[in-house]
């Protein structure tokens, strides 16, 4: 069965013809060394999870801090 040739719905393998076409187009347009493209795309890949993780941690800390402040205010004054 010729499945991996070009099953692009959901998560299956890309058509090798399309992959080769994309590569040639990128080469034509950018004309960069493979290592340079790997480095650029590597930064793009790293940036999102780092930003997301940092944002989530910051929000959690702020929420915990606010909850802590609210608890302090709820303590009855003697």
């Amino acid at each position, binding site marked *: *069965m*010729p*499945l*991996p*040739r*070009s*099953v*692009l*719905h*959901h*998560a*299956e*393998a*890309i*058509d*090798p*013809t*399309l*992959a*080769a*076409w*994309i*590569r040639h187009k*990128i080469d034509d347009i950018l004309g960069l*060394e*493979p*290592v340079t*493209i*790997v480095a650029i*795309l*590597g930064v*793009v*890949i*790293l940036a*999102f*999870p780092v930003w*997301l*993780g940092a*944002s*989530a*941690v910051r*929000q959690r800390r*702020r*929420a915990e801090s606010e909850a802590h402040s609210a608890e302090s205010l709820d303590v009855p004054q003697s």
Partner: protein
Amino acid sequence: MTAQPNDSGERFYGWYVVGALFFAMFLVVGTRQGFGVFVETWEEEWGVSVGAISAAASIGWLLNGISQPFYGRLADRIGGRPVVLVSMTVMGFAFIAMAFVNNVWMLALLYGVIISWAAGGISPSMTGIFVVRWFQRQRGTAMSLLISGGSVGGLVLIPFLTYLFLATNWQTAWVVAGVLTLVLGVPLLWGIVRSDPSDMGLHPDGDSDELMSERAASGVDAVPVGPLDAARWQDSYHSAPMWQLSTAYVVCGITTASVAVHFVRWAASEDISPGTAALAFGLLSGINAASVLFVGAVSDRMQRKTLLGAMYLIRALAFLALIALPGQAALWTFAIVGGVSWLATVPLTTSLTADVYGLRHIGMLGGLTLMVHQLGGALAVVLFGFAFDVWGSYDIPFAVGAVTLVGAGLISLTIRERHVSARYAPVVRARPDLDAAPAGGSG
């Protein structure tokens, strides 16, 4: 991301959950699609045919589909978080192990069985379980963002793996994919994703405690259950919407898998070069990425079944174009018209299933619908090939595809959404059993 700040100026935490799952889909779908980049190298290096390598991927296609109900049932019982964490970890190690494959049998075992089975734990239906628990009013928007993770993964990771392969070798490319999965993907899921908003003392959509109390006081379930919520998942099949959604989704599988696999061959039969056909399919994928985001957001503002039906009918037009128009015109019309509907059915089907049947068995029900989608697609690929061998043309299979799509569109449009969806018919009743219902584990 369309994360909207809540009253206190903070983003709802559910958007971070969507972000982490988006990245998981990005890695898993992007890397699995990257398989195609290495086919010709393996063919030369191992001295095997494309057909043999294809068989390994075919096994993977089927196992990935069959795994869906298994993961769905597991997520319904223990929560989605452990399922995605274990799946992601297995995928990471398996990607690294791909570097040591040196024959097609190992490829079949590692990619066809282990990776494809583990990928079932990061599928649209599995990750969608989180979205339907964290979101109610913006379910369609969140689902479409999640699904777009796969499209973006293909867009970024395929060139990344290709150039890494050119700069080094294919083994290094797989090791790097595995390391990215283990070092970035797993910690992100571990640190951010929780199975249910209640695990963090939150409510769906970021609603306040006061609002939830008001809803409970007015008799409406604080966490809406589906109007057709059933005690056992099997009972869901005693109602029409489950059959309507599943039947239409089988047609979705049939028409996407068959065209994706046979597109280049069809193009050759029309004297169109493989490169042009591949370019048209690339255009289809690009249009699809934009379409899925648009359709998901719009579906939160109107009946989802209307959009779902429209997507199938639009795809039917694309199939008719393949028969009625001459070669090049058919190619580009199909790419543009078909691209609008290609993946847009996924967020609509998942969201509608949750709207109608609630969250209790959403893992199992979502898994079953995706399984029939995959199996229908696998069968259609074989039958389309058989039909071409017999008749020397794809006209008859494409006509059958168009007819089934019209049927799927009409079936979708006949779903009585205003009567069976929690969005239009909120369940008003005392539900003392609600607390006892499984809520997806403690995460």
